[in-house]
């Protein structure tokens, strides 16, 4: 059945989007601006891992069809993305004496600098990690699902990272303060939380997750200097759907947007899949409009519930 | 300049309905679990300077935002001059004659003081894009009138020397005076002042008190939030005391000052 295949792909893509949207949402609320360089932070993570994998790729045995070296490269990607973001915060954003709108515009400049540097070093073309593509997992094929062990690795790794973040947010002092600050930055400030330190951690965590998302996107598709910027619209849609500043909203929003994105081909056959709807019913949208659907959802959310599904209704 | 000139001395007038400029009934608002405004009810009589005080977090600013349309109330009613303005957009509330100022006015970048003043007048013909081209004469006339009026008010406020200064380069205290002057250009039926004395040095504060009193004598009704007790007590009558989002008591300043409930609220809530 076609639907199962699309759902499986949706799950994989969602994992990547969730990793991107959590960081964007956190930075949005805690550093108080829409960071248009977030997508390119993902690209930074992906290419860092690409370089690292070139060095340590042959390392050790393998898990889920991926050599240990890949996981080392993943950690490098996360670390580099996090460090680059923190350095950017320290060097570019912090010394600025402008409001959040000024920061937003600056972040566009930062995005271009990231992308330009990557493109200068690696060229504008697509590349791949030097990992042998796998055949789909055999026992799933009868169910109409064609996914590889690599895809499973993406979902599992993303789940581990998101689960780790959940534990951090719920059971650590840092996490509680981050949530407090995301909820209401002013209140957190007056209640004596050292907001500068929290802000730095937010950049680290947000960009680290974005870096991981970039690495997985590179594994799932390919790498290109534009990969992150192209994803930015979808990630913003996820964050707005989830409600800016809500980490769990971002997870939910990322999951939904990722799913819908991959389910686009199904929309034209909607009637056949849903009960109580005539078989001929369908929304005829081509797969090429997957991003446009994210945009339409975003606009609809802004019209109906601008604070997102997890935010307070106004 | 205001047509709300009271027929009788405001302080001696009886509380007949027609003299009420602002009526707030049973107003409610909460943010998540926090109840910011809890069934607040009060009235502002025409021609008064009414003070709105209360300990930190008593909900003074929330009331201002609810009344002026910046927040939408969850329940209750706001009337300006007998018109129900509940749930209206701030600009619509302003069109009904309720003008407000802000606690920390942001500087208008790239404008001189008198340009900043000229934002004040309501319903300027030159605010219509089409009229700029179809009837430039009318736009020019109204602009000349407004400019002359702005300069007259600045003179009355004794800050006319600031007229062509960049608005970003005057002091915070001077800005408060300019704000008040600008609000007068909007010809308010009732003017809400949000902490007019905050961050203003004593000399300018006296000037501010003087101006508010003078404008009041000329017929403008004021409702003001203020932290500085001396400032409120020398200016406002009556004074409304808010605590935990609802009205604790209301009365002339002397009575309020000596009321034990008010003292308790300040000591208890402020700690």
């Amino acid at each position, binding site marked *: 059945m076609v639907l199962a295949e699309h759902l499986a792909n949706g799950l994989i893509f969602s994992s990547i989007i969730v990793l991107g949207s959590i960081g964007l949402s956190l930075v949005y609320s805690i550093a108080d601006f829409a960071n248009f360089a977030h997508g390119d932070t993902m690209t930074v993570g992906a290419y860092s891992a690409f370089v690292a994998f070139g060095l340590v790729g042959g390392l050790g045995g393998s898990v889920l069809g991926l050599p240990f070296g890949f996981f080392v490269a993943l950690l490098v990607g996360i670390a580099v993305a996090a460090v680059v973001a923190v350095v950017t915060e320290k060097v570019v954003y912090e010394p600025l004496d402008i409001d959040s709108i000024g920061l937003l515009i*600056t972040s566009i400049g930062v995005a271009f600098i*990231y992308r330009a540097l990557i493109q200068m070093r690696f060229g504008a073309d697509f590349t791949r990690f030097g990992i042998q593509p796998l055949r789909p997992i055999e026992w799933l094929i009868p169910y109409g699902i064609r996914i590889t062990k690599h895809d499973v690795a993406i979902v599992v790794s993303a789940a581990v990272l998101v689960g780790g973040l959940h534990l951090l947010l719920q059971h650590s002092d840092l996490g509680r303060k981050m949530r407090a600050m995301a909820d209401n930055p002013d209140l957190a400030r007056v209640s004596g939380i050292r907001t500068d330190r929290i802000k730095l951690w937010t950049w680290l965590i947000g960009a680290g997750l974005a870096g991981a998302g970039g690495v997985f996107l590179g594994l799932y598709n390919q790498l290109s200097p534009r990969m992150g910027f192209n994803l930015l619209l979808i990630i913003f849609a996820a964050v707005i759907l989830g409600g800016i500043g809500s980490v769990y909203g971002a997870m939910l929003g990322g999951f939904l947007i990722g799913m819908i994105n991959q389910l686009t081909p199904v929309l034209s056959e909607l009637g056949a899949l849903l009960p109580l709807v005539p078989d001929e019913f369908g929304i005829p949208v081509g797969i090429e409009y997957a991003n446009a659907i994210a945009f339409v959802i975003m606009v609809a959310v802004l019209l109906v519930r601008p604070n997102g599904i997890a935010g307070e209704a106004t | 300049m205001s047509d709300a000139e009271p027929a009788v001395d405001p302080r001696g007038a009886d509380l007949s309905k027609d003299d009420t400029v602002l009526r707030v009934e049973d107003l409610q608002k909460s943010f998540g679990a926090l109840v910011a405004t809890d069934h607040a009810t009060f009235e502002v009589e025409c021609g008064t300077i009414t003070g709105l005080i209360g300990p930190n977090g008593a909900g003074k600013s929330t009331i201002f935002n609810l009344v002026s349309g910046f927040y939408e109330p969850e329940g209750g009613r706001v009337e300006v001059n007998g018109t129900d303005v509940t749930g209206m957009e701030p600009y619509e509330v302003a069109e009904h004659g309720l003008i407000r100022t802000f606690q920390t006015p942001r500087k208008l970048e790239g404008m001189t003081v008198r340009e900043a003043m000229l934002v004040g007048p309501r319903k300027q013909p030159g605010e219509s894009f089409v009229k700029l081209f179809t009837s430039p004469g009318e736009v020019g006339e109204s602009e000349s009138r407004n400019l002359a009026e702005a300069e007259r008010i600045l003179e009355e406020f004794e800050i006319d020397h600031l007229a062509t200064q*960049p608005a970003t380069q005057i002091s915070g205290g001077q800005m408060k005076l300019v704000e008040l002057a600008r609000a007068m250009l909007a010809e308010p039926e009732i003017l809400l002042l949000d902490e007019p004395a905050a961050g203003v040095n004593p000399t300018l504060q006296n000037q501010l008190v003087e101006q508010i009193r003078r404008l009041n004598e000329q017929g403008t009704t004021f409702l003001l939030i203020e932290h500085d007790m001396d400032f409120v007590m020398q200016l406002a009558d009556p004074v409304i005391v808010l605590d935990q989002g609802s009205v604790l008591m209301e009365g002339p300043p002397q009575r309020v000052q000596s009321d034990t409930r008010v003292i308790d609220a300040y000591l208890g809530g402020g700690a």
Partner: protein
Amino acid sequence: MSALTDPSEYWADLTRPEQGVLVFVVGFAALLLVGLLTGNLAPTYFLYLVGLAGMYSLLSFGLNSQWGFTGLINFSVAAFFGVGAYGAALVSADTSPIAGGFNPVVGLVVALGVAGVLAILIGVPTLRLRADYLAIASLGLAEVVRLVVLNERQWTNGSAGVRGIPSFFEGWPLLETFPSAMANLELALPGTQLVLGAAFWRGLLNVALVAAFVGVTYLVLKRVHRSPWGRVLRTIRSDEDLARALGKNTYSFKMQSFVLGSLIMALAGVFYAHLNLFVSPGDLDPVTTFYVWVAVILGGSGSNRGALFGGFVIVAIREGTRFLNEFDWIPVDVAPLRLLLIGVLIVALMRFRPEGILPPQRELIWPDAVDEAPSRPKSAVREVKGGGDDE
């Protein structure tokens, strides 16, 4: 105060940045002139560059009346430009996949109409919200417009683009045949006999067209910027709540400002279609949007002459970097180099000169009113009288 009657006083009256800009402009013009006279710069190409500069100035005007006046962040400049270009192309070109072959003026009207509707559609959900929502949504809009142009082949020819766009003056009396008529004219210059082809005269007509567009737009913007209407927009930019509290329907003002800017961007697109005579999805490259942003921030947000200046700087950057590819010792491709340049310019401007090079400096009060009002002692801000030479 005129540059011609008393140059030294004129010079002394300028601010330092103004002097710098003047030196740059004069130097740049001199460079081009030298290029023209020495034959290194073909006259037709020169006219094409001037046309492009005018086009970028229009785009900068458009963004300036959104971001500079009101503080609206529009990241879909390229999309509105594209709507203008495609609107003009699809209505006027013979090969248009939908009803083409109309007079270019019809194309102009249709293109502006579509751009206006699109601006309203994107404004309705976002302009009531915080300024960054428009930024995000407009980024999405740009992508959607690009996708539609690329994929709806039955309407747009897809990636093949639209060819056969006539010149803007086709169907006009006199002007239609002007280039071919002039082509036979021989100019007797001292020393040489110069024959300028039809392409040159066509280029000249295009420059005249863009000069007219730029001139009219500039005059309109200058008038509205110093009006009470413009003052409300500038108040919104600094403090929207204040404007609301003073009884201004800020949503309506923001919408007007957004639509006005989008129309100007579409006008730039219409001109481009008739300049280039060919449009393709490549013209909707989002990078165009950020070139224009650099132009507006560089020129000085809110300053119309700054936007004009910024438009010319973009052409200098774009066409200047084009030659870099010819130098073998530069190891990298020009595309990322330009991208880097834009990025660094944006960051550096926001850091060191957020107000731009030519921020609006003079008081903006309706000219008649200032003349009639009693005069006041002048101070830091210079006053503008009726005949002021900038906004």
